[in-house]
């Protein structure tokens, strides 16, 4: 299983050239090499906006194939017809040469200049690049959405272009979090939360089709922070929630919004905004509903005193997990809130809460208080498959939750047992992103084994990516139990040892302290960026890593590394033709303001 490392230098990787010294363009795992495939970044010169203020987050957006290219996409009502050429234009204009695009628009007298610019775009683009672009955003396409400073950038996941194809600038505040729902019915599929507390919902396709640098067709919520003026920290669509979504804020509040177009008439004056009663006791959990029935948000949950750092839904929408800095036991208890539907929530949240709370008290959660207080990041398995709707090979069954935080540790929580069942030590700084690799399949998994193996990854402010293997028996018996001293049993050097080890050893007793919880050691640990990392995403073909400053790297999985490298050569040849047009220098200067 283990790929023999023969010191082969990966020369085929096209994106590998502009590497920082000391960083490799691949990393090794027992199943083979992950090769750096593409890098995505924002135009330089924006960095100073971001320093220490905003942290880049990444959202993957998969636009579904539309039945016929001639059918105008539903949300883009102002957009008459769509064609590959037009897409190309918008793409090119939105990409490297924003200033030129602006110049053309200006030359057209600011009138509806889409056709004009599209012609120019098509003239400029070589035929090969247009054909490549044709496959994009009017049809199926996967996009990377990321925030840097005062802008949201959109890049094409499957193109080798480093620069984004679209930038959206926010004049009032910095965007800090976003979420995408490919099943959104009314076309508004992208949510953006701002530092000022403001929230927007938009159609991603409509943004891609627009040549401007502003949001188009947006619904604006919590305008100028009228409901809550503290920073948005995390935003999420309610799975199966018919367009409803939740926004977490830095003051410990979480708001539930209803689908805008059904229940909420956009009110330009903000008069439709909700008002909520004053929170009497900041330390207590409370749920309040908006005073006016037709306002949005419809409900406020006060979760904790400090910031809510992250939220995540289980894929079926049953659970909402939150982590906050002073979360302590509150967080854990929140971790298991049911969220079946907003309506049910309205009526049943109180009783459900009290049930969970009793349960909570009876068990040993208090002991886990210490583990959670510093958790800043959380991820729930998305076993439905965010990507291509593909059912992953490994059963991401929603049984476990990963957290990581300011104690440099990664923790695995069992939903059934409602406690930490394993923890991992290996980062040299805070853990900033964790995710299950739902596309990974265990080398031993033929469906007959009694244990389930999970692969997960974590990234940290130590600029490293760590991969972990977690082996779980049906009755939660983790392997690799540390010796009494608590030191790691398996170092990265002896990874093969547990690779073949399927049989669980020992049974996990109710643990009085973390020292008795099985400790994991990372399978691999690689320094992959120069800046502290802020997140990672697993896709079927690759792993995406992103740093705080907004640089994204896409690492191809071992199995996929061969075929895309063939593609990348053709892409390279097209890119060389395209280069004069999409010069990086022009691109970066044009984004300076």
């Amino acid at each position, binding site marked *: 299983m283990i790929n023999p490392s023969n010191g082969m230098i990966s020369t085929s990787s096209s994106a590998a050239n502009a590497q920082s010294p000391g960083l490799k363009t691949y990393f090794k795992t027992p199943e083979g090499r992950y090769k750096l495939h593409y890098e995505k970044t924002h135009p330089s010169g924006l960095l100073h906006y971001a320093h220490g203020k905003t942290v880049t987050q990444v959202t993957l957006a998969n636009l579904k194939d539309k039945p016929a290219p001639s059918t105008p996409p539903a949300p883009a009502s102002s957009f008459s017809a769509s064609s590959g050429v037009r897409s190309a234009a918008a793409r090119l204009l939105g990409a490297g040469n924003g200033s030129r695009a602006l110049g053309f628009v200006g030359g057209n007298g600011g009138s509806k200049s889409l056709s004009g610019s599209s012609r120019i775009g098509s003239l400029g683009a070589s035929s090969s690049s247009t054909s490549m672009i044709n496959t994009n955003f009017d049809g199926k396409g996967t996009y990377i959405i990321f925030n840097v400073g005062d802008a949201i950038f959109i890049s094409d996941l499957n193109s080798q272009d480093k620069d984004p194809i679209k930038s959206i600038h926010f004049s009032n505040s910095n965007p800090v979090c976003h979420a995408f729902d490919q099943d959104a019915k009314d076309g508004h599929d992208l949510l953006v939360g701002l530092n000022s507390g403001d929230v927007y919902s938009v159609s991603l396709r409509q943004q891609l089709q627009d040549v401007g640098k502003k949001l188009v067709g947006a619904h604006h919520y919590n305008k100028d922070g009228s409901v809550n003026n503290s920073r948005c920290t995390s935003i999420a669509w309610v799975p199966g929630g018919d367009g409803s979504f939740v926004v977490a804020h*830095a003051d410990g509040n979480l708001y539930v919004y209803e689908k805008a177009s059904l229940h909420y008439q956009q009110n330009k004056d903000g008069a439709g905004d909700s008002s909520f009663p004053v929170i009497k006791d900041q330390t207590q959990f409370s749920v309040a509903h908006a005073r006016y029935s037709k306002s949005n948000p419809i409900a406020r949950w006060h979760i904790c005193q400090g910031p809510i750092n992250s939220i995540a839904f289980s894929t079926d929408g049953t659970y909402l997990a939150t982590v906050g800095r002073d979360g302590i036991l509150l967080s854990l208890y929140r971790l298991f809130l049911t969220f079946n539907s907003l309506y049910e929530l309205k009526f049943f949240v109180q009783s459900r809460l009290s049930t969970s709370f009793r349960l909570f008290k009876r068990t040993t959660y208090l*002991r886990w208080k210490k583990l959670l207080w510093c958790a800043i990041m959380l991820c729930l398995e998305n076993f439905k498959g965010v990507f291509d709707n593909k059912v992953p090979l490994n059963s991401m069954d929603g049984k476990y939750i990963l957290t990581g935080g300011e104690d440099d540790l990664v923790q695995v929580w069992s939903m059934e047992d409602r406690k930490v069942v394993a923890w991992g030590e290996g980062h*040299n*700084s*805070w853990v900033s992103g964790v995710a299950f690799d739902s596309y990974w399949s265990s080398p031993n998994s033929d469906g007959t084994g009694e244990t389930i193996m999970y692969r997960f990854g974590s990234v940290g402010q130590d600029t490293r990516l760590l991969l972990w293997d977690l082996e779980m028996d049906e009755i939660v018996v983790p392997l690799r139990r540390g010796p009494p001293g608590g030191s790691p049993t398996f170092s990265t050097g002896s990874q093969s040892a547990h690779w073949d080890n399927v049989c669980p050893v020992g049974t996990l007793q109710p643990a009085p302290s973390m020292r008795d919880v099985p400790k994991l050691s990372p399978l691999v640990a690689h320094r992959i960026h120069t*800046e502290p990392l802020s997140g990672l995403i697993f896709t079927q073909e690759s792993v995406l890593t992103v740093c705080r400053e907004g640089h994204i790297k896409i690492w191809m999985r071992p199995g996929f590394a061969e075929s895309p490298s063939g593609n990348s050569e053709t892409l390279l040849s097209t890119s060389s033709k395209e280069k004069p047009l999409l010069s990086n220098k022009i691109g970066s200067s044009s984004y300076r303001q």
Partner: protein
Amino acid sequence: MEISIMAKSISSKLEKALGDQFPEGERYFGLENFGNTCYCNSVLQALYFCVPFREQLLDYYANNKNIGDAEENLLTCLADLFSQKKKTGVIAPKRFVQRLKKQNELFRSYMHQDAHEFLNFLLNELVDILEKEAQSAKSDPETSSPNEKIANGPKNPQPNGIRKEPLVTWVHKNFQGILTNETKCLRCETVTARDETFFDLSLDIEQNSSITSCLKNFSSTETLNAEDKFFCDKCCSLQEAQKRMKIKKPPHILVIHLKRFKYIEQLGRYKKLSYRVVFPLELKLSNTVEDADIEYSLFAVVVHVGSGPNHGHYVSLVKSHNHWLFFDDENVEMIDESAVQTFFGSAQEYSSNTDHGYILFYESLGASNKS
């Protein structure tokens, strides 16, 4: 004159910012800089907002005013400074700085000084003063010492070579912790444990690491060999050995000094390490001898501003009544808690960011988790 005018504008600004939330009885004043005395001002602010230390200093001062009546020393100067009545504005710590320069020639010049060296000197000086006063109080049978008696009698004063520590003063109670230094001779396998007391922990730092990670390295096992062999008493010779440091008794106030000024042999001089070392607002200390984790809460940071070791500036960040304040000599400003993270350091070597956390002050959150 000028200062009082400036003070007024600062005080009104801060009072306006705090509004009704101005904590009762709390004082936020700037400290005048007498030419490169920011090393002193920044540390004094951190100590002032170390509330148990401040309270015990003022208590002691109030109860012992008569003892050293005629004599002025650093303790009386510090207590004078800390007991001033201004709510906001600017104070000139003139007597304190004069006394400091008199006491130690190191601080006499107008050169840039090391804040950590000053803190170390000050705490040790306070202990000396308290010990002397306790001695004189003891030798004078008429007055009974308000301090704890010397722990004599059953206790052997020198087990395992502990530094003579006859008196536990309130300075000790706040800042002192005990490290145990275990050395295992690799030849005879004898483990020698030696306890050491400390007022602060000086940690080596690495790029893009955390305090937790630095503490882990501090306690990690180190092999003594080659030039650096260990003299084993049993073998009566220099031997290879393994050494590790653990915290035997965590202090109430944990002061962490980041070794940002490092002697680089190739350069033949000191260099400032601008590494990004993240420090949490709540720290869990796990490299202790006992199994229980101790939790600490950050309440002050002394920040070094500048790219080199021999010049620059010191400022401090302080948490008081759940607000964060920024002290830059005379200036006092409120800052958002999220601003603390801008003082972590630079993720890459060449950066315009030169404000780096240098000394961290954590206070224990009380009883540890026994379960």
